[in-house]
């Protein structure tokens, strides 16, 4: 294209034929010229270089190229740094703006104050970003291993923060007053026999080293009567002003509420992005191409790997699209066969899961047969093994079943895409959280004699007092054991599974070696492990107040361990995992864990009678009773207000108001969606008219030239 000066000093690139060509004409339009504008005095983007003869006409070209919107004057409210101009142009404009401080913009007076406030706040806004720990590590991980792995570590960091908050709350409200005020409680004297049995957690003085170790690992012995467990806390402190039972109860509720709010806040931002994309399938190719390259990637090796991964993914995606088209042409018989196979496979998976759950139930030893076996009682190692049997079974099931389920899902005939991952995720979530449910169920059976308050073991005291004189401590011990075992598994897996695999992979050559030696970070599995660990803490936090603190230490250790193994053993992922789905999905699973953990805690608070021999709620009919008792002590006005909150005349209007709000928001959202599609249609129409007109101009221009 030759550049030619036309009559008005306007730059009109000419096409190969007579008259302006179609692309040249389109590039003169205001919409296209605004894109190319780069600020006062700078040649517009895409202008032919060198444009020395245009510099004198630059002013005119600028004026002509952007008539309507006058880009010399960007709106006052836009910060200069947001303009896509080079530094010279921004500085020029800044100086000009600085010379006119008193210019009043009509109608923007209110926002001017806000603008100044925003400008003053800007330097301080960088501070919270600075306080975030491990920012550079996360960026490095994201660049090298992909967004999915990065989102796992972000979740880990978030959970660490949650645990620190929870530990602080419980520490401040229960532990601190105990140590500052009250006398440290002594265990109940063993000689006294009471209607609800006797409880003797007194450690037997000097114990030998193995017993000490087993006590540490199972929470018995010295640890049983320590601030670690519920049973240690007394009913009253010295001075009588600080109500320890109330504080204990409230700290649980407050930390639970805080966790809920923080998780909701995190999932809302993920939800906003997921809602924006009308349908993931519609824009997958554009997203994949435009946001494909991670600019943080450094080094020729990772870049080459990423390129290979991208190419592979694109090819697979295109193949799958072709396969999907052919699959739609399946006959009815083929569909029936497919669905028959799918139901069969799902039944098989359910059977496997059922077997795993039964194994876990058996391992919790509901009848105490294994525990009371004389051989087991003799050897401390066997005793420890029996105590840890539920954890072993659960970890075993969680290690073995997911690959098997993955294999079976692969046979179901779905396309090898995200569908498979999501379906697999469903099953693994179910497995992990349900195994916890099974454990809790069997414990419940033990404590409440199968929910039968009339059974002879539970009749006197409401719970099985002979085997479990302090059932809350026992529950806390189970959760403590699960936590420890989880930590041990996390420490053992790199050592016993990943390291040998890597070693074997490097020793055997060829495809087998590569198969063994390539380890990839399985993001969904790891995230589920995190959620499982956090759910444990939420369930056990009421019965084992220091569990949050232990979990903080565990997650801290886990972060550094996982980072070390990631950089040492793992290769970058071969499939990209989109961060947006991760950011929405993971907090959702966390919420599920929170909801699940609320059930046993609330059940224990409201229904099961507290132990008569230990804990801050001794002698009450149920744990919740301390709150109404406390309310009775308040003044009349506050009491009436609090009671009115519980009545129907408050709840019903609240429910009505929230349903109206919800319906309104839904209608608004759907109307916006409709508006967007209408506008899209308008844009298409306008652009078609524009292209038609431009074509006509080109034709007429050509004809005119021919006539001359």
């Amino acid at each position, binding site marked *: 294209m030759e550049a030619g000066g036309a009559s008005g000093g306007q730059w009109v690139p000419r096409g190969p034929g007579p008259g302006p060509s179609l692309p040249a004409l389109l590039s003169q339009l205001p*919409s*296209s010229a605004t*894109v*190319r504008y780069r600020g006062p005095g*700078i040649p517009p*983007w*895409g202008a032919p*270089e*060198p444009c020395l003869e245009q510099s004198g006409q630059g002013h005119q070209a600028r004026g002509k190229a952007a008539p309507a919107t006058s880009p010399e004057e960007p709106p006052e409210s836009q910060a*200069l*740094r*947001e*303009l*896509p101009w*080079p*530094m*010279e142009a*921004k*500085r020029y404009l*800044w100086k000009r703006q600085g010379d006119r401080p008193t210019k009043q913009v009509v109608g923007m007076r209110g926002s001017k104050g806000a603008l100044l406030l925003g400008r003053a706040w800007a330097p301080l806004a*960088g501070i919270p*970003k600075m306080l975030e720990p491990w920012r550079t590590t996360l960026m490095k991980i*994201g660049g090298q291993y992909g*967004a999915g792995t990065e989102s796992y570590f972000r979740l880990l960091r978030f959970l660490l923060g949650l645990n620190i908050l929870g530990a602080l709350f419980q520490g401040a409200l229960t532990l601190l007053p105990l140590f500052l005020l009250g006398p440290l409680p002594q265990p109940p004297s063993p000689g006294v026999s009471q209607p609800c049995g006797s409880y003797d957690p007194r450690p037997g003085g000097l114990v030998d080293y193995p017993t000490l170790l087993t006590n540490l690992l199972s929470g018995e012995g010295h640890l049983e009567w320590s601030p670690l467990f519920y049973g240690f806390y007394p009913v009253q402190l010295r001075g009588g002003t600080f109500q320890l039972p109330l504080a204990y109860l409230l700290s649980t509720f407050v930390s639970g509420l805080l966790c809920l709010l923080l998780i909701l806040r995190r999932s809302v931002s993920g939800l906003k992005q997921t809602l*924006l*994309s*009308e349908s993931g399938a*519609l*824009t997958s*190719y*554009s*997203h994949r*191409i*435009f*946001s*494909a*390259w991670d*600019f*943080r*990637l*450094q*080094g*020729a090796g*990772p870049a080459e790997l990423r*390129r*290979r991964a*991208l*190419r592979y993914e*694109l*090819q697979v995606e*295109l193949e799958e699209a072709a396969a999907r088209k052919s699959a739609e042409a399946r006959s009815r018989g083929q569909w029936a066969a497919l669905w028959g196979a799918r139901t069969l496979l799902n039944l098989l998976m359910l059977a496997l899961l059922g077997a795993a759950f039964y194994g876990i139930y058996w391992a919790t030893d509901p009848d105490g047969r294994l525990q009371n076996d004389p051989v087991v009682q003799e050897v401390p190692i066997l005793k420890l093994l029996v105590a840890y049997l539920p954890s072993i079974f659960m970890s075993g099931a969680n290690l073995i079943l997911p690959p098997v389920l993955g294999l079976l899902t692969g046979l179901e005939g779905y396309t090898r895409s995200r569908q498979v991952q999501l379906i697999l995720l469903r099953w693994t979530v179910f497995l992990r959280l349900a195994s916890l449910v099974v454990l809790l169920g069997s414990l419940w059976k033990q404590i409440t004699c199968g929910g039968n308050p009339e059974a002879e073991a539970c009749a006197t005291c409401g719970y099985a007092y002979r085997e479990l004189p302090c059932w809350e401590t026992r529950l806390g011990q189970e959760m403590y054991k699960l936590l420890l075992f989880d930590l041990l598994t996390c420490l053992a897996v790199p050592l016993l599974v990943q390291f040998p695999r890597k070693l074997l992979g490097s020793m055997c050559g060829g495809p087998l070696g590569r198969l063994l030696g390539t380890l990839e970070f399985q993001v969904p599995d790891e995230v589920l492990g995190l959620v499982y660990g956090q759910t444990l803490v939420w369930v056990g936090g009421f019965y084992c107040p220091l569990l949050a603190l232990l979990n903080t230490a565990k997650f801290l250790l886990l972060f550094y361990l996982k980072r070390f193994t990631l950089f040492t053993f793992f290769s970058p992922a071969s499939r990209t995992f989109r*961060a*947006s789905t991760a*950011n929405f999905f993971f907090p959702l699973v966390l919420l599920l864990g929170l909801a699940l953990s609320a059930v046993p805690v609330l059940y224990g608070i409201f229904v099961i009678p507290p132990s008569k021999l230990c804990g801050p709620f001794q002698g009450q009919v149920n744990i919740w009773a301390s709150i109404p008792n406390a309310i009775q002590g308040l003044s009349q006005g506050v009491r009436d207000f609090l009671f009115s909150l519980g009545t129907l005349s408050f709840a019903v209007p609240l429910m009505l108001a929230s349903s109206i709000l919800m319906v309104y928001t839904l209608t608004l959202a759907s109307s916006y969606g409709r508006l967007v599609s209408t506008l*899209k249609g308008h*844009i*298409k129409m306008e*652009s*078609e008219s524009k*292209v038609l007109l431009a074509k006509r101009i080109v034709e007429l221009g050509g004809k005119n030239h021919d006539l001359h």
Partner: protein
Amino acid sequence: MGSSTSQLSKELLSEYQELTFLTKQEILLAHKTFIELLPPESQNVVDSLTAQVSRVPTEKVLTLPELKANPFKDRICRVFSTAPEKDSLSFEDFLDLLSVFSDAATPDIKSHYAFRIFDFDDDGTLNKEDLKQLVNRLTGTEEDTQLSPSEMNQLIQNILEESDIDRDGTINLSEFQHVISRSPDFTSSFKIVL
């Protein structure tokens, strides 16, 4: 960092902070990195800031580890250069580059510059040729690493179908920004930090 604080004056620092998304530490680090790329005789503060005297040729900038492995490295330098031949970067160009790729930059400006980087023929729209070159840069430039012609055509067809709202066969800036706005991974991947 003690010696470099005295090198850039306070007014200049605050001016750069006002006009870019970078923090003070990032600007100082950028200055340090830039000075190391200059030839030894111009490695002082005054010369490094005068664009007429010292511009770093693109080849030297591309030796930075952050840019070396990037398939779009030449396009990035070309887009941010204000030299007439677009073959060298001054310090302010370098700051502009880092500002757009920084953490704090708005998605708007990132998508604007991404559009310019992907526009290989500099005509203000992404046409089929631009998209073809884009895909080739992503997958690899050798013969055996490229997609086959049929796959390429299919891919470009799909992209245009998804993003080209006005059906004129090209993607202009607003269509590009519209697609990018619905891709939340874009802002986190379009980052370069020294």
